């Protein structure tokens, strides 16, 4: 099977290290470290208190081990919780950003200089623990859209942050969310005012660079009544033999008739063929459809990380609100992913759609875990779930754990699942018709993921296909 497997994922292309002088706090976690982080960010007292509450809760919480993944113990005292390039950029002026940082993002295909911008995309670039640049701020401000680093939002827009931070994912929600709440450093903040359709795609690119550090970003997006925003995050990290921890929290709030479309292309370093190194991606993402007729749509393409533990979900509070989850998760070599979604139906006529595509190759283990919960008051709620698994080779695994909890008899639930396999015979068949093995695999994988890719913004759909090692030649139409 070796031929097929190697074609699924190209070698990791983003594994370089930027040689930049960084300020890294010594490893370990304590009240003092949290005070230090809060102090470095120039935070108000309420933020520090919140962090400390989270930390004290976290100390009492056990690390969860119910996921279908296996890894050695994580030494939380061996991780450094803050790393930042020494030459601090002034966010007002890109000229003052360290050229090495610009170069790094350029190399990753994320242009920060506006003249080289991606058409119609505003970017927040986060390097280790800090946001180094946010583009198009002025343009967005004209529309009343706030797009900035969360550390800046805490200082500049404290009322908004205080109202919404932790309102979807409380600081004591789970072990990793509590850790994040205690030590989060940067991430993006978005506020789209009433009735505004955000004129640009918003995007945050996360880069881990420093050694022995974790990245704990926090993202908060608020879409006020009748607004619309499409947001995308991408990420990568250098190749290292050690495992690095990434524990993020993302909170989305959609008010009446607002729509948030959140897309992720996750390409953290997955470790090598033997499973050495790679990112532990333990992430809590949740959106609240608070308002009537609001909509939150998650699309994720997960190709990286040694271990993924991630269940972007929707709490459908408002009547007629809609939650969607579209996912492609790839595990190759020794990667393990336990990912899926939670759809909690509370309001009447709430609808949710789940489309999950898991691809396992090498010795990868891919688990879909999803919860659809229909509460008592959710009259006429509907859910449609589709979970498809694809196996490449005979040493990988696919697992599906759908949980369905219905407490209202008017609910309509549909669940479909399938498992398929790319075999040597299929490849030979395609070759006998003149296709190369690469084309055959990419055709099959591409076809398998089609329903999810079409949910991504155009530029990123292309990126996602490329990430899967897919040649686009001849695939249009």
């Amino acid at each position, binding site marked *: 099977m070796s031929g097929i497997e190697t074609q699924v994922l190209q070698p990791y292309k983003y594994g370089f290290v930027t040689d930049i002088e960084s300020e890294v706090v010594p490893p370990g976690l304590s009240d003092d470290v949290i005070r230090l982080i809060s102090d470095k960010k120039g935070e108000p007292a309420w933020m520090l208190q919140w962090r400390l509450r989270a930390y004290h809760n976290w100390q009492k919480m056990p690390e969860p081990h119910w996921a279908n993944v296996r890894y050695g113990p994580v030494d939380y005292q061996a991780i450094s919780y803050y790393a930042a390039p020494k030459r601090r950029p002034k966010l007002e002026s890109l000229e003052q950003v360290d050229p090495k940082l610009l170069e790094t993002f350029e190399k990753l295909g994320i242009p920060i200089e506006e003249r080289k911008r991606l058409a119609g995309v505003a970017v927040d670039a986060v390097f280790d623990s800090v946001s180094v640049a946010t583009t198009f701020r002025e343009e967005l401000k004209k529309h009343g859209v706030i797009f900035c680093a969360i550390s800046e939002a805490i200082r500049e827009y404290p009322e908004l942050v205080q109202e919404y931070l932790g309102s979807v994912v409380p600081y004591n929600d789970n072990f990793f969310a509590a850790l994040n709440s205690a030590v989060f450093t940067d991430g993006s903040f978005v506020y789209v005012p009433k009735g505004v359709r955000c004129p640009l795609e918003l995007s945050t690119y996360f880069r881990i660079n420093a050694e022995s550090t974790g990245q704990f970003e926090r993202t908060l997006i608020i879409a006020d009544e009748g607004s619309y925003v499409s947001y995308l995050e991408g990420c990568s990290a250098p190749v290292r033999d050690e495992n690095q921890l990434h524990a993020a929290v993302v909170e989305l709030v959609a008010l009446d008739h607002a729509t948030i479309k959140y897309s992720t292309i996750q390409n953290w370093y997955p470790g090598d063929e033997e499973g050495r190194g790679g990112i532990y991606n333990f992430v809590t993402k949740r959106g609240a459809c608070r308002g009537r007729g609001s909509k939150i749509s998650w699309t994720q393409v997960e190709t990286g990380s040694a271990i993924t533990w991630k269940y972007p979900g929707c709490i459908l509070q408002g009547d007629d609100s809609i939650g969607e989850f579209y996912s492609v998760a790839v595990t190759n070599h020794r990667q393990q992913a336990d990912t899926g979604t939670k759809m909690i139906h509370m309001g009447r006529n709430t609808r949710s759609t789940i489309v999950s595509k898991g691809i396992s190759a090498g010795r990868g283990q891919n688990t879909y875990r999803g919860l659809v919960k229909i509460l008592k008051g959710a009259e006429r709620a509907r859910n449609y779930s589709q979970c498809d698994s694809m196996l490449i080779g005979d040493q990988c695994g696919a697992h599906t754990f759908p949980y369905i909890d219905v407490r209202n008899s008017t609910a309509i639930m549909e669940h479909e699942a*399938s498992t*398929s396999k790319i075999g*040597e*015979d*299929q490849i*030979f*068949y*395609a*070759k*006998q*018709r*003149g*296709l*190369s*093995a690469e*084309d055959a695999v990419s*055709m*099959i994988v*591409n*076809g*398998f993921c*089609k329903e999810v890719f079409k949910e991504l913004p155009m530029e990123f759909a292309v990126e996602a296909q490329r990430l899967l090692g897919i040649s686009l030649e*001849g695939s249009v*139409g």
Partner: protein
Amino acid sequence: MTDNVLLQVKDLHVAVEGREILKGVDLTVNAGEVHALMGPNGSGKSTLAQALAGHPGYAVTAGQALYDGKDLLAMAPEERAREGVFLAFQYPIAIRGITNAYFLRSAVNAIRKHRGQEELGPVEFMDALEEKLKAIGWDSSYLNRPVNDGFSGGEKKRNEILQLAVLDPKLAILDETDSGLDIDAVKTVAQTVDKLRRPDNATVLVTHYYRILTHIEPDVVHVLAAGRIVKSGGKELALELEERGYDWLREPAAVS
């Protein structure tokens, strides 16, 4: 040797999982000819077909095969296909997630590209396809279904013939395409294949049944037994086999 030799197989030995199945096959197919390859179960017919197409599970341990003057065995399977070798599979493979139309067009374009021709867009391709669909009695709904997925045995075989008609190869090897087809379907398949007959191409029909040969008249009939071609003759040989079976041929194989 004439100039029209399209395929020349000499003393071909092929092993599957270490066991020798073909023990020295000699076969010459000229352009413009139809050959029928018959023989009892397990005699190596499918092995010959798969080996000529380049299946990695079939190891050529000795011998050679020249195709159009080139060393066929040195070519990768996809190169053989692009050069005009087509195998209609005995058990066509299902591929989920890819529509028949997309798969076919990709194959056509891979071959066109190899020949230095311009690739066909979806619209041009569909135009070119229409007539061929009709010939096998299909409507376009089959094109939007995943390749062979959920197809009946007969539909899969028809799909092979559709691919054959669309790709228009120089050398077509049909591995028991007539097996599992009803009488009418055999006729449709045979007529489609017969229509593709030209002086510059050739067909090798691997079959168990005389019936298909009443629709496509073979120039040469071969009997493969225990890994060797033990008898070749004209179309009357097929009729003789139909009446007498294979047993009378088994002994000479051991002697020659």
